[in-house]
Structure formats: C-alpha cells, structure tokens
C-alpha cells in the first residue's frame, strides 16, 4: 500500500535531527548505567574510568546516565516522533516550521550547556539536582533552555492544530495528532513547577543574588514536575500502542473513543500527584500526602483502560491471524517482527511496572521503599523498558522512513529486543528485592560498609543484568547508525501503519474533541492540590545556603 501523504525532505531531516540527538545521548549515557550495575556486583571499573578521564566518580557517571538517558534521549525522541504525528496525522505541514526549528535548536544549546558542566565534573548533582547541592548557574540556564525550547515546539503544534481545526470544522482530530498535542499540554502543565524552581530559586541562588533558598519548597516545585514527567515519557509510547501497534500486529484499534478518554484523564490526573514522591518529607502535612496518594491511584483507571483497549486490539489482530482459543491469539501475534515484538515485550514488563507503581503511591507502603533500590528497579521497568523499548520499536520504522534506507540487520534488531527484555527482567527483579531489604538507591553499594553478605546474590544479578543490557544497547546503537547512514537504499518509502479504529471516528462524542473543559479542569485540580501547601511553605521559609565545600 502507498502512503496517502508524504513528508518533505526538510521535514524528514528535521525529525531526523531530533532522533540523532536522542540516539547520541543514549549512546553516551547508556555506557554509565551498566558501570553502576557492575559496581553493585563488586566489579568496580571507576578507578580505571578515572585514569582514562571517562568518569571522575560514580556520581558523575550516575548524573550522566540520568540526564542523558532519562531527560535527553526521551525528550528529543518524543519531540521527533510527535512532530511526525502532527504532520502525518493532520496531513499538512507545521504552520510555523521556523518556530519549531527555533525551539529545537534552543533545546540543543541548553543540552550542550548543561552537558559541559556535567562533563567537567562541576555539576555532579544527579538528574534531580536537589539543592542545597549547587551547580554553576549556567547549568541551570541550560535546563531552562531545554524546557523552554520544548515549550516552543509544543506551541508550534498548537498553532498547527488550531489552523487544521479552522479548516476542518466538525471533523474529529485524527488520533495521533490529538494525542501528540495532549502530550505537549501535559508537559506544559508539568514543567511549570520545575520552571518556577529553576527561574525563581536555583538560578538567582547559584548566581549569588540570594544567599539561601527553602529546600522543602524547592523539592515541592520539583516534584510538581517530577511525576507528570513520567507520563510525558509514557504517553508517546501509548500513542504507538493505540495508534500504530494494532495495525502493525495486523488488526485495528478497538476503541478510538476510549483511547481519547484515557488521554483526557491523564491530562486531568497526572499532574496533581507530586506529594507521592514526598511521603517522607517532613514539611508536607499527612492529609495532603494522602490526597495526592488518592489522585495518583486514580491514574489506575486510565491505565487499566489502556490495558483493556490495547489487549482487545491485539486479540482482534491475533484472531485475524488465525489464533484460536483463550490464549492462541497471543501466540499468533508477529513475535518475529522487531517493531511489534519490542512493543509487546515493553507492555509485558510495564504491567509489573504498574503494580510496583501502585505500591510506591500507596502512602504508608512507601515507608518501606522510599529512596531504596526498589525505585530505580521500578522506573527501569517503566521509562527504561515500557517507554524506551517502545521508542526503539518506533525507530525501527521511523528511521528507515526518514533516511530512505532499509532497516539494517533485522535479525540483530529482533535479538536486541529480546535481550533488552531479558536484561531488564533480571536487573529489575534484583533491584526490587534489594530495595525491600533496605538497600539505598544512588549509592555505590560495592563500597558501602553496611551491606550484609546475604545480599551478594542479588547484587551479582544486578551486574548480570547490566552485562546483558550493555550488549543490547550497543547493538541498538549499531543498528541505528547503519540504518541511518550505511544500509541499502530502499526501493520504496516505508509504509506508515496508522491503525484504523473499529468504530467510526466521527462517532467520537464532541466533548472528547474539545480542549477547554479538560484544560480548565486540569488547572483547577492543580490549583486545589497545591495552593494550601505552597502558601504554608512560602509563608515561613527557611533560607539555606550552599555547602561551603565541594562534595564531589
């Protein structure tokens, strides 16, 4: 089948730049992740890395891994993928391509600025940059540029959708474009918190304009951003699961309506939840922590809706492919296609990630696992598998589409996907178990004097997971480099497999295609969930200065 719309060369190149930065960040950042895992297992490479000027300390490596993988790889990949969805979904160019290009380059400048200070070991503050750890002020400026640049790309999407709606009155917005704008709206609401923290607290403080800032207040603004951030990572993966995967697997989207309702619920519920990262913070009252726990748990509803719709779509595909019986449809899915297999495997581990997330969010159960190895165990199932493995699956068709070359080494791509699944399963299970025993996160456990010998089996499994993941991630980088620059030129353009819905798209109720009520609701809920605590914190701040000595 021929695609009914084609992106111009310059549009493809623009998306390609996003993916290039994303994959480059992943290539550098992913080196340091396994180095941490190896430290756990007792294979400490840091003295060697120090000699080779690759990392001055465990924490410089950890900062690089967190920033490059969780922030740069995700954000750039997402904006590239969403740009594609906007143009291909609406079948029209962006309204102001130069505006989007400006936003993109602003992000690049921001990343380079922040990266310089991390690489120079002047900003080993981890990706949460909790004060009063203090980096030089241009580091924070880099973060601001990254965030504001992403806003500008989002504004470019809003203008484009607005024009499309004007030109197509009464027509339902195509799902992939709608969901892309929804993702950027969620991002806009989420990043307000970190923008306030950075602009009004960290920047003036690190530049020496104010002596001290309130640490509890800074944490509160940070976590206003920090949790919806994970939904910003997740929703683009959902776009692929709802909008592409059903067709890639050979079927149709079960319900376009419910897919949209889920996205609206995410916009509504995913921002006013930050206190579930602050259950053990002294400065937030228990009642408010409990309210945020309930709001977080409410996200169970759109999450289980997503599970239902995606599984129903896949069952339809599996049965169409000849799968019979209760589970036969599952076996009949194309597990040998790296594009599909990556997303199916991502989904399987995400179920466990979801269970763990409920435990994290459940108020007092969080006492057991706050700041333990359980937490990175959890988010390596979510952002590093559900999201990252899905993005890898997307790149297996999107990069060939952009470069006009064939996906290189299909077999290796398939192997890589299964290795990732295996490596993450081993790594993550061991991390969860260590966390339940009380092992702290963000700690070179290989050097910690308090580790009992009984933990050594688990620590070894973390290391084994790390080996497998190190192999898998560089297989991926190899495949990407070859597909982008060296693979055989394809004879025809890659077919874009946007899933058709089983129901008529025009049957989607109008209120599911109207922005105003949902946005008003989301902002109102955000105000209710944060105002009392913020007023309380701001009315009696305790200014704290940066530590006198350099700590890393």
């Amino acid at each position, binding site marked *: 089948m021929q695609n009914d719309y084609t992106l111009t060369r310059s549009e493809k190149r623009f998306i390609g730049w996003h993916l290039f930065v994303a994959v480059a960040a992943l290539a550098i950042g992913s080196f340091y992740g396994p180095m941490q895992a190896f430290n756990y297992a007792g294979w400490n490479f840091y003295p060697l890395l120090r000699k080779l000027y690759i990392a001055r*300390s465990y*924490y410089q490596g950890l900062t690089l891994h967190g920033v490059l993988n969780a922030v740069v790889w995700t954000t750039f990949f997402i904006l590239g993928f969403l740009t594609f969805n906007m143009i291909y979904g609406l079948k029209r160019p962006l309204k102001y391509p130069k505006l989007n290009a400006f936003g993109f380059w602003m992000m690049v400048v921001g990343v380079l600025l922040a990266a310089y200070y991390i690489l120079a070991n002047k900003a080993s503050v981890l990706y949460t940059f*909790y004060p*009063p*750890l203090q980096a030089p002020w241009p580091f924070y400026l880099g973060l601001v540029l990254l965030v504001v640049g992403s806003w500008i790309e989002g504004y470019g999407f809003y203008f484009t959708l607005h024009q499309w709606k004007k030109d197509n009155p009464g027509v339902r917005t195509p799902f992939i474009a709608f969901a892309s704008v929804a993702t950027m709206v969620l991002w806009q609401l989420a990043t307000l918190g970190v923008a306030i923290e950075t602009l009004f607290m960290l920047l003036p403080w690190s530049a020496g304009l104010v002596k001290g800032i309130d*640490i*509890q207040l800074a*944490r509160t603004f940070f976590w206003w951003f920090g949790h919806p951030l994970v939904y910003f990572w997740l929703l683009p993966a959902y776009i692929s699961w709802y909008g592409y995967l059903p067709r890639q697997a050979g079927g149709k989207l*079960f*319900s376009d*309506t419910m897919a949209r*309702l889920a996205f609206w619920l995410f916009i509504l519920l995913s921002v006013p939840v930050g206190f579930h990262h*602050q*259950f*053990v*913070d*002294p*400065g937030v*009252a*228990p009642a408010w922590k*409990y309210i945020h*726990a*309930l709001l977080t*748990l409410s996200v*169970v*509803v759109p999450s*289980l*809706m997503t599970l*239902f*719709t995606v599984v*129903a779509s896949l069952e339809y595909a599996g049965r169409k492919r000849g799968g019979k019986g209760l589970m036969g449809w599952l076996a009949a899915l194309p597990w040998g296609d790296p594009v599909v297999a990556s997303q199916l495997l991502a989904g399987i581990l995400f179920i466990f990630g979801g269970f763990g997330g409920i435990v994290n969010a*459940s*108020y*007092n159960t*969080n*006492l*057991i696992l*706050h*700041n*333990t190895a359980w937490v990175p165990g959890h988010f390596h199932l979510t952002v590093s598998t559900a999201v990252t493995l899905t993005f890898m699956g997307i790149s297996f068709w999107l990069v060939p589409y952009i470069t006009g070359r064939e996906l290189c080494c299909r077999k290796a791509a398939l192997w890589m996907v299964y290795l990732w699944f295996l490596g993450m399963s081993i790594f993550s299970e061991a991390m969860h178990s260590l966390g339940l025993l*009380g092992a*702290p*996160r*963000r*700690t*070179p456990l290989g*050097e*910690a*004097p*308090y580790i009992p010998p009984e933990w050594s089996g688990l620590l070894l499994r973390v290391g084994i997971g790390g080996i497998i993941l190190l192999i898998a991630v560089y297989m991926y980088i190899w495949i990407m480099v070859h597909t982008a620059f060296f693979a055989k030129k394809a004879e025809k353009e890659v077919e874009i497999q946007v899933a058709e819905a089983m129901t008529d798209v025009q*049957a989607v*109720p109008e*209120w599911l295609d109207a922005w105003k009520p949902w946005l008003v609701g989301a902002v109102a809920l955000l105000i209710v969930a944060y105002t009392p605590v913020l007023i309380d914190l701001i009315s*009696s701040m*305790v200014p*704290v*200065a940066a530590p006198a*000595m350099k*700590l*890393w």
Partner: protein
Amino acid sequence: MSSLHIDQHEKRWITISMVLLAAFAVLIGVSGFALGVQVPTLEQKIDPTKLNQDPEWSNPGVREIVPGKKYEVFLIAQTWQFTPREIVVPAGAKVTFYVTSRDIQHGFKVLDTDLNVQVIPGYVGKLSYTFKKPGEYKFICTEYCGLAHAAMFGVVKVVPPEEYGQ
C-alpha cells in the same frame, strides 16, 4: 452532543478498576490514620547553621522520658556522618526520632523497620517506632550527599529492658 459508546466488557473492566481504587484508598487510609502506620511529620523549622545554639540540638542523643516506656532521639545528619552514630534503647519502648540536617539533604532509614524520613536542612522530621526485638538495627543515609555518601551509617542497639542502662 453524541453519547459515549463503551463496550460491555470494558464497562465491567472499568467498574472493577474503580472498585480496586476504592479498596486501596480505604486500606491505606485505615492503616495510616486509624492503625497508626504513619508517614513522618514536621516537628519544627530551624536554621541549620544555628543548631549549636539550640538547647536540644546542641546536645543530640537519646532522652529518657518514661523509663522503659518512652524515649526521644535527637539525631543530626551532616556530610558524611550521623550524630550520634550509636543509639541505645530498650526493647518494647516507644522511640520518637527527631531528625534534621546541618548542611544538605540526607536520608534516614532504619533497616528492617518502617522508619524512613527525608532529612531536609531547615526542617525537623518526627517519626516513631517501637522496637520489639533486641538486636542491632543499622540506619543508613539514603539520599545522595556527595562522594562518601555510601559510608554514612549508624546503628540502633536495642537491648532487653532489664539490661538497659547497665
């Protein structure tokens, strides 16, 4: 306004998810607010540079409130140590910890218990626990605080009530 079409099975599924949600809400609410499995609370705010001028904080350590029954511990975290490093309390007594930081953020987690608090300079966290069994409970720093973070820990020695103070 057209109406929302939801598949029969999906309706049931959503109902189940809402029931689950309600069950979770009740369970954590009851265990937290009725049975006392509670998160840490704020005791006071204090300038971290002035801890030495405060009568309680200039002398951190264990305070006996009711012998054998009730104890308080004033604990200061700072880069890269806890003061005191060793805490001795009798088994079966209710121990209330007041924890704060002299410099940057730290964590205080006692292994094998549900004692866990983010240690934030300027804020004093309050949390309680009754150690039922005698033994050594390590407490560790769970927040990144610089190069020697991994070496920051201490121990709660829980002794049988009859041996306490000897």
